[in-house]
């Protein structure tokens, strides 16, 4: 039951943060939700302890399902890259509460 409860708490916290105003909080919210997604992917294999899924080292009947682990690995890489990009967007660009133009080095007549 620990994993489903953890996933639930993570999603709840993530949704709460996403509906806040600031970009940084939204990013934290998305990070929580993607963690929840990763845990959910892990539970699609068997959530009990299994051996490492390496050929010739672990017997097939006690080895873990390698596919969800591959899914999670791919998902983590993608989320990490996008999180860094979003943090950059939070730094540049304008404050969403004001109408000030950001300094982009370009000239814009309004």
């Amino acid at each position, binding site marked *: 039951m620990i994993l489903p409860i953890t996933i639930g708490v993570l999603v709840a916290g993530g949704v709460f943060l996403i509906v806040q105003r600031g970009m940084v909080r939204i990013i934290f919210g*998305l990070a929580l939700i993607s963690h929840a997604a990763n845990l959910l992917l892990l539970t699609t294999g068997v959530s009990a302890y299994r051996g490492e899924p390496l050929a010739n080292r672990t017997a097939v009947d006690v080895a873990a399902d390698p596919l*969800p682990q591959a*899914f999670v690995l791919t998902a983590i890489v993608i989320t990490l890259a*996008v999180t860094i*990009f979003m943090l950059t967007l939070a730094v540049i660009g*304008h404050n*969403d509460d004001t109408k000030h133009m950001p300094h982009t080095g370009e000239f*814009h*007549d309004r």
Partner: protein
Amino acid sequence: MNPALLSLFVVLPLTAAALLVVLRRPALDRALMVGIPALITAAGIYLLNEHRETPVLAHNIGAFPGGVSIPLVSDTFSALMITVTSLTTTVTMFFLTRTGEDRFRFLPSLALMLTAGVNGAFLTGDLFNLFVFVEVMLLPSYALITLTGTWRRLGIGRLFVVVNLLTSTILLIGVGLVYAAAGTVNLAELVGMAGEDPRVGYAVSVVLLALAIKAGVAPTHGWLPRAYPATSAGIMALFSAVHTKVALYGIYRIYSTTYEGEAPWAPILAIAVAATILIGSYSTFGEHIMRRALAWQMVAGVGHILLGLALFSQFALAAGIFYMIHHIVTMGGLLLASGAIEQTYGSGRYERLAGLARRDKWVAVIYAFALLSLVGLPPSTGFFAKIGLLQASADAGGWEQWVFITVICVAAVATLLAMQRLWSGVFWGPTMENYRPESQRGGRERRVPLPRGLHITWQLSSPAAFLVTLQLVFFVLAGALIPIALRAADDLLVLQPYVEAVLG
């Protein structure tokens, strides 16, 4: 053809993108960003021809046995989508070189990376792989949307990234649930499983929900008309040709494969489709900027395309696929024509533009033909596309018949009225007196009096002219195109060749 060559559709643009990061030569940039999509278009046409005899070509990457490996599958539907999107991408890339946007560092590489993701998403036969290719398509888009356009793109870029990342997470959760329920994410093994096992049905519904948000189906369409117009016209045309279309392709493919017929929640889809069409076409009235109005028309187009799936018969699916082809080409033409106007006069607002019908006669002619196609009046592909959907609705019988025919007609009239506002604002009215020239620093300078000799150059308007002529050719050759659309619909209904080719 050797099916192993299918991976070239992904490998070629990815390699070119990597090459352009290392080699910095403007001439090479231009040659590859136009040449590679053109090459893929030619390969797509070859593939379409190949599928007349062999309906499905499949290749398991790394020659692993079927079921364990990642399959790339091509049939008439995916080959058709690759051909049409690559052709539109080629024209859009040419437009980007004409507006000088190719000078932005990494833009050519990012655009080619986008192409790789799109082709991969069309060819893959595996749900998790679809997620990966959708991400390969989206990651360059996150950068592209913040690269060119007005300063608003920086705020809008956030919206675009947040919506798409959240949706991708839902897609990932859906794929995980499918794996938990069915024990596989291979489409060929999932055939009919969602219809038999309600757990797989729920899991597949989560995947389809994520794709529906990415496609811009009401009530989750709100991000699309806000995000797209904030970038430049060229990038918006690129996105409009591929992004929502990949999601729509995914919905068509996954829905018809996993359910092998209609889903239990088909009435909800029907309601969402009708709402999308009506909301999209009526919201066009509220806009005063060309590309914003067109973005709402994209939402309406998504509804029209999904109508084929909601009705679910061979003719209805073919009508939906034909509408998709029409929509990609027509919308590309309209966006590139608007882009040519904006690039020359510095604004897309109705009230800042006037009298272009006298100033740039040929652009007005191009725009007029494209608008006819959007509304669905002959001579245009839009005419046949709408007739097809009306015919499919009439065949459906019952309440669907009346509801959908009414919705399509009301939406067409609303589009016509809204586009008349655009036309009278931009192309009629008094002679224009001032404009905003392009700034050396990027962006736009202050308003200055408009010189007599300034016109939209042929180089800028030729991409739009090409796409509008193409849809006129489609109008004339509709008799040859409809059998291809019917064969593409067969791919979605007769799944035996697909399963045999993949699992062999």
